[in-house]
């Protein structure tokens, strides 16, 4: 399902040389179509970005900076970093393991496994949050046991980390899988026959080959982890200063009519999104120009 999330390594020298007039549209049509597309993209992509920064800076840089002196906002930034800091490495570990198992071997049930890994993609974030409330909430399956042992998951930080891990679960695996499958086993088998151990083979042969896919997977996973809203909203308890992540803090500030502050925090996440896009472009460029 996430094929579309893989960057498609552009084929080298891919420029389409249009030789004959018979297979191109008339100039006016070309300009029309281009104009329509540019207008569409401007309205749907450029405007939202623009309004984030425009509103954040609407009353000046001082007000913008002041938004980040609020204790609750700082706490939300800290919580977001913690959640991503745990979810992303865990999913990287899992992603590498899953891509190795699926990419390097043939076994029964492979399709099923891939479909199961894809599951979190197709689940609504709200449903994802509900799933964990039903498991760990005080009225949930494990609720009584958790309460008896004083362990708090829902309405506390562990719950937020768990749902973040759930919703970003497939990202790294799905990025690595096509690459690992495309590269096949040849190099690894060669290294192994030359006497390298499994771990050494992985470190010296596989990793360098998948490093760009891995980088992109990590960046994408991180962007999603930091930006997750629906699932975290359900399990967080909205305790300001304690269990509000950046997206939740944005919602609170916005509903409280503190527009400048809301968009100031939003601008941080928008910047992160732009960095993600830049990294993606860079990765594509590196892949096309010699890897």
């Amino acid at each position, binding site marked *: 399902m996430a094929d579309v999330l893989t960057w498609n390594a552009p084929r080298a020298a891919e420029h389409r040389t249009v030789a004959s007039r018979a297979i191109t549209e008339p100039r006016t049509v070309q300009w029309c179509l281009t104009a329509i597309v540019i207008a569409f993209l401007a309205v749907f992509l450029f405007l939202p970005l623009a309004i984030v920064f425009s509103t954040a800076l609407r009353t000046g840089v001082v007000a913008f900076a002041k938004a980040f002196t609020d204790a609750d906002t700082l706490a939300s930034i800290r919580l977001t970093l913690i959640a991503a800091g*745990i979810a992303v490495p865990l999913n*990287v570990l899992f992603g590498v393991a899953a891509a190795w198992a699926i990419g390097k071997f043939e076994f029964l049930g492979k399709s099923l496994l891939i479909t199961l890994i894809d599951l979190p993609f197709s689940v609504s974030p709200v449903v994802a949050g509900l799933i964990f409330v039903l498991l760990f909430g*005080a009225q949930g399956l494990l609720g009584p046991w958790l309460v008896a042992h004083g362990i*708090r998951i*829902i*309405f506390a930080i*562990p719950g937020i980390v768990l749902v973040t891990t759930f919703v970003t679960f497939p990202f790294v695996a799905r990025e690595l899988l096509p690459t690992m499958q495309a590269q096949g086993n040849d190099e690894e088998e060669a290294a192994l026959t030359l006497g390298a151990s499994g771990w050494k083979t992985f470190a010296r042969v596989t990793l360098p080959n998948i490093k760009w896919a891995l980088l992109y997977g990590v960046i994408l996973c991180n962007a999603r982890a930091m930006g997750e809203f629906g699932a975290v909203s359900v399990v967080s308890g909205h305790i300001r200063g304690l269990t509000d992540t950046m997206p939740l803090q944005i919602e609170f500030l916005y509903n409280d009519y503190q527009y400048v502050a809301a968009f100031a925090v939003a601008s941080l996440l928008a910047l992160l999104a732009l960095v993600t896009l830049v990294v993606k472009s860079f990765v594509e460029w590196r892949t096309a120009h010699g890897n």
Partner: protein
Amino acid sequence: MYRGTKAWAFIAAAAVLFAFATPPATGAAGQATILNVSFDPTRELYNDYNTAFAKYWKAKSGQDVTVQQSNGGSGKQARAVIDGLQADVVTLALAYDIDAIAQLGKLLPDNWQKRLPDNSSPYTSTIVFLVRKGNPKRIRDWGDLVKPGVSVIMPNPMTSGGARWNFLAAWAYALKRPGGNDAKARDFVTRLYKNVPVLDSGARGSTTTFVERGLGDVLVGWESDALLATRTLGNQKFQIVVPSISILAEPPVAVVDKVVDAKGTRAVAQAYVQYLYSPQGQTIIVRHFFRPRMPSVAKRFAPMFPKVNVVTVDAVFGGWQNAQKTYFADGGVFDQIYQPSQ
């Protein structure tokens, strides 16, 4: 990349330790953090109150206290506390919600209400109407709310305390009319909810919908929110209409014993609720348009509040236990009448 992976693992490990090392509620020397889980319209009130209390407590005990604040529909907040939200203090819209925490969550004793003066309600309020300036739809009383073409904004009784006060006030009006009985009241309230386009989960949410989003012709809700809207937004945009009959709302406060004992914050939490009854506390309360209990403060600020003819839950409905079970429990009257059938 290999080095990068190691770095990530390190960060992850550090983050895990960081996350689970929840800071103790009472630090070694003088630091305490308490959580006040409150109903929806009290944001400004407790913002001010928390600052004042921190100053008072620091002067009195030398301890630095941070009061964290959570606002939301009263019923919803109560269920959150029952579900594990670690509230040191609850300040909700009606006694039943704290009763539920006592009985279902077993977090405080059943006789909690007797522990503080005035049935643990340091302030009261009531239900009034807020309309747009000029009152274009000519809304004078409850009866006008069921007219066709009138859009009424009220919150969801299943989550909001104010919404339940609204419901009972409307029911009481229909009961008190000549020839009024339960069947007629039910019919009246059914027609009333047909005129409600959206139910927010809390009273403040409804106020926001009416005031900021411009939806609806009339907002039925807390007098405190209505006064807030007309005072802070100026009388140019809204005006208050007092219905012929309303209900006396007594929002109670309580310390949540199980939580404060586990966290070691009993002293500061108890001081927190008691300070609400002090002259300073009562003055902050009245400044945020809640009716104070202290006679001297009430007398001084009496002109600020409209005259409202009120009944009580006990007199008309036999108390909250009864009212909740009849009207707001699963499958109760509200569930039966609110089948959006448009």
